[in-house]
């Protein structure tokens, strides 16, 4: 039996991540330095871990309601109101998911019918396109450019809209570029959308990681809340990646549709993680701020270092990535990454992993200690000097 031929074409058609084998090499090099990983290097703050442990000691090992513990949903709503001035009802307008990723998948599946177009600014996180394809939708990339600081511009958005456009993904602060959209930038986007029926999936997972400015939520713009599904989670803000917990907030009809899928596919998000997350929402803000301050130090060090090396790089104000232009070496993104790993044992991610518009760039994560960053910078400097 040819098993492969019997798999769903929707899955066989999905592009596998080409980066996997590349990073398998990294793990075999003991003295390699990686700036490749896209998750915090901090451990979850102890009081949050402790709350998870305590819930286990108390025997809280049951399922929660499908949409998540009510107390957690209440705390999420309090947090969003307090931090970003957006208000949601704990009952009906929030669903707690397995990471922000599940929320993205649920949102796309709940909204997209076959043939619907989904606008995806690129470069961006890798899941939007495959999730759209699995839902039968048509991914429509919108290229963002270094000269626009990798922001989505109203002009580019307008040009991409067709009568089939159903959903716009708004992935800011952005992975991999570190770009943010300010209130003014977002108002420009809102003006384009105002007279359309286009929904917005605002992926705000990096909202706590903005530097020198407060994050502004798209849902905060008057008239935009109804069409916006705000997706976020605990991984980046509270260093809780392994707990797998996120959430989506939005109009009750959309959240209810998303919860229906969630209820059949997942049942309910991990209970221990939910109890830990309540503690994070109640008492974790100082931790989040402290971690953000630390990332900011590293961001300045790596940006300064990369520019001194002679690579041009726009200043990113969000997430924990910088996205330097490597064309001065005459190599393409993949060649650069392979050669850098082979010659200097430093791992960074080719920009093309995040869409073809990432060609000519690489993603460096600064979720690493200052000493690792400095070591990596020295090696990148040697490498670039050799190849310029």
């Amino acid at each position, binding site marked *: 039996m040819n098993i492969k031929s019997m798999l769903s074409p929707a899955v066989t058609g999905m592009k596998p991540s080409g*980066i996997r084998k590349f990073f398998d090499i*990294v793990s075999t090099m003991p003295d390699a330095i990686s700036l490749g990983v896209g998750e915090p290097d901090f451990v979850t703050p102890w009081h949050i871990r402790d709350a998870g442990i305590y819930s286990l000691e108390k025997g809280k090992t049951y399922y929660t309601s499908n949409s998540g513990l009510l107390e957690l949903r209440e705390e999420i709503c309090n947090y969003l109101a307090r931090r970003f001035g957006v208000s949601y009802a704990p009952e009906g307008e929030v669903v707690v998911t397995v990471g922000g990723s599940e929320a993205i998948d649920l949102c796309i599946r709940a909204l997209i019918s076959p043939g619907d177009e989904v606008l995806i600014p690129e470069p961006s996180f890798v899941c939007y396109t495959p999730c759209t394809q699995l839902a039968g939708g048509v991914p429509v990339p919108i290229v963002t450019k270094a000269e626009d600081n990798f922001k989505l511009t109203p002009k580019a958005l307008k040009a991409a809209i067709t009568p089939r456009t159903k959903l716009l993904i708004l992935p800011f602060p952005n992975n991999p570029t570190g770009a943010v959209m300010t209130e003014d930038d977002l108002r420009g986007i809102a003006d384009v959308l105002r007279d359309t029926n286009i929904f917005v999936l605002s992926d705000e997972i990096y909202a706590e990681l903005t530097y020198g400015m407060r994050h502004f939520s798209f849902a905060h713009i008057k008239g935009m809340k109804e069409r916006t599904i705000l997706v976020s989670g605990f991984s980046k803000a509270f260093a809780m990646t392994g707990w797998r917990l996120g959430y989506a907030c939005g109009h009750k009809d959309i959240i209810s549709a998303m919860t229906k899928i969630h209820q059949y596919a997942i049942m309910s998000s991990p209970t221990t993680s939910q109890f830990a997350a309540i503690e994070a929402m109640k008492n974790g803000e100082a931790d989040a701020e402290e971690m953000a301050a630390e990332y900011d130090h590293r961001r300045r060090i790596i940006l300064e270092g990369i520019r001194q090396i002679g690579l041009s790089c726009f200043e990113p104000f969000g997430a924990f990535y910088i996205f330097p232009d490597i064309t001065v070496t005459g190599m393409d993104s993949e060649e650069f990454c392979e050669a850098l790993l082979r010659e200097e044992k430093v791992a960074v991610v080719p920009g093309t992993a995040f869409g073809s518009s990432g060609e000519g760039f690489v993603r460096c994560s600064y979720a690493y200690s200052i000493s690792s960053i400095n070591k990596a910078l020295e090696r990148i400097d040697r490498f670039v000097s050799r190849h310029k």
Partner: protein
Amino acid sequence: MEEKILRLLEQDCCYTHAQIATMLGISVEEVDAQIASLFEKGIILKYIALIDWEKTDREFVTAHIELRVTPQRGEGFDKVAERIYQYPEVKSVYLMSGGYDLGVTIEGRTLKEVALFVAEKLAPMEFVLSTKTHFVLKKYKQNGIIFDTPKEDERRMISL
């Protein structure tokens, strides 16, 4: 800004002034001036290394001594503390609230050496009412640093 510089130096005093300047978005000259003034004012006393001596061959013991003392007329506890902290064996002295007055850390080569120091030097002082000696068996964390922190990065590459 002063506090930000101090927090960075408390993390790692080996950061160069240029690195600190970059991290905080200020000029190197300003960092130079601030740090000079912090030394001047005695806010930064010294840059030292945090050492896990347990990992070396050096023989040593540490003890925490609880001292109950009579404060001296006109000079309170400060004069008493001064008489005690002059000894090089004494590594730290704190004035405490609660069941005793001075918390003293003593380091010596052997248990006996420390015990004798307490018996011969501290206990006979005229203002010392009582001593209670606790020997340190293992150090887990000091100055916010956990001694046995795994060095390996356990994060794995996943789907980016």
